[in-house]
């Protein structure tokens, strides 16, 4: 099965990249742009058919490696 993991900065953690993108977009004339945040998306293929097991294993991956939970939060999305 395929999984998509989002790793984004926690609220309250300053996001210099997002801010820079926001400024650049304003500079380019996209005045309607408000707050911008940048995160990572990780697409994985998983040899696992049990959804619950896949989810547990992905959670484990996030905690151990994919996210730094001091500053980041994560969301897991499964696609069949």
């Amino acid at each position: 099965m395929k999984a998509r993991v989002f790793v984004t900065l926690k609220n309250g953690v300053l996001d210099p990249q997002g801010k820079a993108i926001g400024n650049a977009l304003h500079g380019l004339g996209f005045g309607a742009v408000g707050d911008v945040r940048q995160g990572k998306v990780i697409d994985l293929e998983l040899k696992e058919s049990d959804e619950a097991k896949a989810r547990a294993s992905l959670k484990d991956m996030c905690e151990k490696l994919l996210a730094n939970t001091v500053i980041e939060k994560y969301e897991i999305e499964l696609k069949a």
Partner: protein
Amino acid sequence: MKSAVIVFPASNCDRDAQTALKQLTGKDPHMVWHQDSALPDVDLVVLPGGFSYGDYLRCGAMASQSSVMKAVKAHAEKGGAVVGICNGFQVLTETHLLPGALMRNADLKFVCRPVKLTVEETQSAFTRKYSKGQQITVPVAHGEGNYFADEETLNRLEGENRVAFRYAEGDNPNGSARNIAGILNEKRNVLGLMPHPERVVDPLLGGEDGKALFQSLIETLS
């Protein structure tokens, strides 16, 4: 003082650390490969600068999971001295041996230049040969040295005198919270710092302000 330098596949200041240690201790440090699971019998472990595993995903994230880091953790837990320089600092935060995290520099650019630091704390094995408030100049070379921790952690670090070095006012190269350049752990046997003291132990290379850090360790640990 017996020392070891950890070598990750893309460490690149390992030789710089080795040269500085050799110059100041007169002895070659052990160079320890990241796949090793045990450390030689040493007083000091140095986590050098560089890009450990390419610094893909996050700086130091993959290194924190390496087998050698289990041994480094054990060494630190037993009270052994550990210093992480630059990428080494990032590895220490990712391993949770030090609090907080190192984020992208505020201006998003890699920066290599000498910066002015103030020595904030001299009650440690790493800094006792400096004087409190002393201004030193040490180069930085990093893209992700922007120290972040929540307010509570920052207050605690300051309250417990665990901020070892700060960037001098107006010379913060990366946007670090409260100008923090280097911090100690609770037991004060682990130091992480973004600037490179090992690059300034020779006047020919731009100064000797890094020497006292190694001399402090030699005095304490020999």
